[in-house]
């Protein structure tokens, strides 16, 4: 029996150390947490459009997409939680800001429509590549969850791609899209492992219709100042009553 097993509080706040101690397949759980954190934080960011999206239909649709992302996060946290002996809620809400593994792309707060669409499109395109790899994983449970997530992401991709086409259809829209994609591209690269990036760039270029700038990837592990603010707000209610049963 170790201190980590005996003390759930430590386990909650330090999956890193817990993992190292238990000697679990580190890579698999790290990957689960990366994915789950990406989905949770992007879902949260996208939900900031609820009530202020350009049309009512878009408002409901984009909010629903945001909720789906959070649902995917839950499924992934549950897989990780089963391995780590904790719960999805504890993984989602009780970690320290520096322990989140989400890509900087999803942390950014960009409440501007062209940037929102650009990020949505860049993320979904990266996620498609990542899910393709996961669906072929040896871990049957992970492959199954990836397949389920991918079936829902197909509709998110459709939404993102339709908006990209829509922006490209006018001169003003195309210019806004290009500016947003160029600004976010270094961050977008950070979502995927280096090996997947050339294919990723090829797919993005095919959809946006221009060459992407050379960029230094903004890698996972970096924490943007916006993330701390987001986490502060996201965990506010939960922290107001520690240990409560909701």
């Amino acid at each position, binding site marked *: 029996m170790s201190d980590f097993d005996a003390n759930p509080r430590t386990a909650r706040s330090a999956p890193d150390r817990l993992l190292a101690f238990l000697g679990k397949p580190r890579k698999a759980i790290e990957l689960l947490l990366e994915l789950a954190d990406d989905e949770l934080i992007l879902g949260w960011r996208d939900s900031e459009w609820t009530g202020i999206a350009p049309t009512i239909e*878009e408002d409901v649709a984009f909010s629903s997409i945001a*909720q789906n992302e959070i649902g995917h996060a839950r499924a992934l946290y549950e897989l990780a939680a089963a391995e780590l002996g904790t719960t999805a809620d504890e993984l989602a809400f009780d970690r320290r800001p520096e322990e989140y593994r989400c890509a900087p792309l999803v942390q950014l707060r960009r409440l501007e429509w062209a940037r929102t669409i650009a990020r949505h499109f860049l993320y979904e395109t990266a996620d498609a590549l990542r899910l393709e790899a996961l669906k072929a994983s040896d871990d049957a449970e992970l492959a199954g969850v990836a397949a389920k997530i991918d079936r829902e992401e197909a509709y998110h991709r459709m*939404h993102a791609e*339709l908006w990209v086409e*829509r922006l490209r259809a006018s001169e003003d829209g195309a210019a806004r899209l290009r500016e947003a994609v160029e600004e976010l591209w270094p961050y977008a690269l950070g979502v995927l492992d280096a090996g997947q990036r050339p294919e990723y760039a090829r797919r993005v270029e095919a959809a946006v219709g221009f060459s992407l700038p050379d960029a230094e990837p903004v890698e996972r592990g970096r924490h943007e100042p916006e993330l701390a603010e987001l986490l502060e707000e996201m965990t506010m209610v939960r922290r107001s009553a520690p240990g409560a049963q909701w």
Partner: protein
Amino acid sequence: MGVWEVFRQDRKGQPFEHAGSVVAPDAGLAEVYARELYSRRQESDALWLVAREAIRALEPVPAEFDLSYRRVDGYSLRLRLREARAALGKAESR
């Protein structure tokens, strides 16, 4: 922006019923919006989307004559069913 009328089917085999409408700039986004507005809680098995311009609305047929005799209001189906069941029960108990 155009209006699309949305019809939803609860379960396979059930009739499609008018669910409402969505306003969208094109058919593609209309599909996305219809899916998110009318099946995001898994309340629909299938959806139909019809551009409002594609609907041919007919004027109401003028009521020139009393056609009430064509209706079946006076014919109590419940009573006939009860009689049929009673007759069947008698037949089975024999």
